[in-house]
């Protein structure tokens, strides 16, 4: 089931929440587990068994880890093994085929929804138990609830066991905050991501040889916004639903396109994934504590894994390596150099490298990749009718995307408020009151807009418009 559907919003949610709130607390996790399994099975009826198997076997092994520490390796082998089998086996087999010229056939396994997310959650638990960071969970119900929790099951954020350990047993729902986040996420996904995604979709349908350079850049920008708002929107919906249930999931995106370097970008983009790799791969490998060379190698390893995590295809590996390369450069000298430049130059550098990186992310065919890069960097620049057409019909969406993915408007409003504050308030109110009043007014405007966005989102969902699910390869 996806969040942006009538089934989820108007059937699953009311029924689930009704059941959840009428039962006494000790049964709440049962309701949560059952509804999560239902939620998963709606989109992935067969692999729900794989999910349950994963949960059960790791629960059993996890309990024994404090006594038999070698079991961690068995569990890691098992989890990574399942991930490789279901996600990477086809790709690995193709590699084998190319080198051995074998004509053997291999059954193509469909990728189980969310396997990369829940496997990583399980592994965080196993490693934390091994490290003694937390005690093994004794209740199968609690453990299964943690792994399958429907808000974050199929598209993250990757919640670590230690993040929610206590909340599995006792938690306080925050309804208002939760719904607020959920509606923000829903609007980001349905109104922004889906709409701007249409531009990218149309460009892909053209032969790349006919695309002008401005069109190529505009389309790439649209793709960057689509993937950000889609992913960030989904995370916000998950975080919001978590609050409503009483769970605190980690923040996953923090205005990544406002970064001034790639190092900063990775501390703002898909934070739960990068911090997972940092915690369980980068630091155990020695991090930055074993000399510069080792640190650079570690960066290379971590970002190769980050890349390939996003899909079983070489372009994702390339995408990871591209960032590894930039991160190494920044570590060595680039960061120092950049920091001497004006801030706007730093932003431009980051945006440029992030955008060109998305090309690697978008195409798994080498020829498409090369010809699209060729379009981006050809010297013949003409503002053709296609470009003007795209601008004419989408300028407002672009502006909204820019505003919402940055903090330009917040900064502006802050300045205005402070300006009036410093001026000494109006004739009718004292200083403090002006400040409070204007903040409340802004808050109210924001909230009304958000409710309107919710209604519009429903309209866009009902009219069955373009509503893709982008994480099917993750």
């Amino acid at each position, binding site marked *: 089931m996806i969040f942006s559907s009538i089934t989820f919003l*108007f*059937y699953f949610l009311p029924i689930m929440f009704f059941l959840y709130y009428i039962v006494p607390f000790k049964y709440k996790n049962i309701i949560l587990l059952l509804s999560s399994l239902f939620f998963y099975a*709606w989109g992935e*009826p*067969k692999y729900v068994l794989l999910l349950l198997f994963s949960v059960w076997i790791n629960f059993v092994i996890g309990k024994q880890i404090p006594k038999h520490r070698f079991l961690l390796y068995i569990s890691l082998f098992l989890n990574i093994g399942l991930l490789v089998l279901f996600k990477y086996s086809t790709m690995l087999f193709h590699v084998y085929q190319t080198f051995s010229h074998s004509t053997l056939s291999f059954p193509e396994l469909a990728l189980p929804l969310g396997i990369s997310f829940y496997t990583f959650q399980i592994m965080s638990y196993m490693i934390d138990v091994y490290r003694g960071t937390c005690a093994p969970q004794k209740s199968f119900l609690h453990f299964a609830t943690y792994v399958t929790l429907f808000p974050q099951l199929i598209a993250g954020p990757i919640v670590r066991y230690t993040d929610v350990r206590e909340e599995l047993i006792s938690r306080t729902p925050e309804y*208002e905050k939760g719904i*607020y986040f959920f509606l923000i996420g829903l609007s980001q996904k349905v109104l922004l991501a889906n709409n701007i995604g249409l531009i990218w979709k149309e460009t892909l349908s053209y032969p790349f040889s006919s695309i002008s350079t401005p069109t190529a850049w505009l389309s790439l920008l649209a793709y960057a916004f689509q993937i950000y708002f889609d992913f960030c929107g989904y995370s916000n919906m998950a975080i919001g639903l978590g609050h409503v249930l009483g769970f605190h999931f980690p923040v996953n995106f923090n205005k990544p396109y406002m970064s001034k370097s790639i190092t900063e970008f990775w501390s703002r983009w898909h934070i739960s994934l990068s911090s997972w790799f940092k915690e369980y791969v980068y630091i155990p490998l020695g991090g930055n504590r074993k000399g510069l060379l080792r640190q650079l190698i570690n960066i290379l390893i971590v970002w190769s894994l980050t890349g390939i995590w996003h899909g079983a295809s070489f372009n994702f590996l390339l995408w990871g390596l591209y960032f590894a390369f930039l991160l190494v450069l920044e570590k060595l000298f680039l960061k120092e150099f950049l920091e001497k430049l004006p801030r706007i130059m730093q932003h431009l550098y980051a945006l440029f490298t992030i955008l060109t990186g998305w090309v690697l992310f978008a195409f798994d065919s080498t020829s498409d990749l090369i010809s699209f890069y060729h379009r981006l960097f050809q010297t013949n620049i003409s503002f053709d009718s296609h470009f*003007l*057409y795209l601008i004419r019909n989408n300028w407002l969406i672009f502006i909204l995307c820019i505003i919402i993915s940055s903090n330009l408007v917040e900064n502006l409003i802050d300045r205005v408020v402070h300006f009036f504050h410093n001026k000494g308030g109006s004739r009718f109110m004292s200083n403090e009151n002006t400040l409070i009043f204007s903040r409340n007014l802004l808050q109210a405007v924001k909230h009304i807009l958000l409710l309107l966005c919710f209604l519009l989102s429903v309209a866009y969902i009902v009219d*069955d418009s373009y509503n893709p699910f982008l994480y099917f390869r993750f």
Partner: protein
Amino acid sequence: MKKNYFFIFFSLFITCFFVAGIFAKDRSFSAYENRYLASYPSFSIAGCMDGSYMEAMDTYLNDQFVLRDSWIRLKANTEKELLGRKVIKDVYLADKDYLINRYTEANIDRALVAQNILYLNEFQEKYAAEVMLVPTAGEILTKYLPSPVDQLDIPSLLSDAHTTIPAFELLKEHDTEPVYYKTDHHWTLLGAYYLYQSFVPDAYPYAATDICTDFQGTISKKLGGSRIFDSMAQFQSPTGNHFQVTYDNTTVTDSLYAPAYLDTTDQYSYYLDGNHAITKIENLSLADTAPSILIVKDSFANTFATMLCENYKTVYLIDLRYYNQSLADFIATENIPEVLFLYNTMNFMQDKNLLKLLR
């Protein structure tokens, strides 16, 4: 006290629609969208296992969502008024309420286009056929299109095709008249008339009666309905309206029209009962010496043929999508002296059956 108005609004909202959804009666047909809505899917274990039941359920819940038409209207108005879009779902919201399809590279495969042109040219030489490629509305009504226009340059794509009748130029001369529907991709009877007029030396003058005024065609459907309606017209037979129409060599009727379609979503099939592999129209008022003609065609010919049969004893229509015998044999057996190829430009570029032209 903490205010929970977001939560209250949200929960009330989804609860109301949930409850209303349970009690609301299912609609089988949406007049606004001019299509049948999904009905309650039947449950099966197999459907659950492969997920098709859940997909059908998603579609069903979406189609039957309470106030569906209003939601769709809200979206359409948002796109138009708030976002100021002039093109929605590849449909131009053109001047004078015209809804016009926008075609782009995404709609064609250049290799197929080149192949089809080769087939057509060979066919044209083989039978010395007349060839008429009817433009899409977007090619003719350019002055109504919202700028900047960005669409396929269809005339240049088809410049190598051996067309014998300058349909583009002829329609362009009448681009201020209603030669296309506002809500459908077809040309109107009037549009077809101008080509009839140029095709037949002693063409009859235009005389038509409206047979319906609530026509909403394919483009309107694509947008999920609109408030724009077209009228459909029928040519007044100057020769006495004595016809015998045979569909697929089996069904025989005495009318060029199928009024039953006017009450369905497929009103355009009023003309010549929609699509058939082979249609034979005999004008009983004409002498046996009057000529006969074969039209290899798509649905654009259906209006055209209702006028052409006033001047021809027999008009054969063959639709290659459904016709699987040899065209050469047919022309030889029936001893047909004249062959016309009549296709819409876009249909021509997309058709995968044109190999059959040479059979």
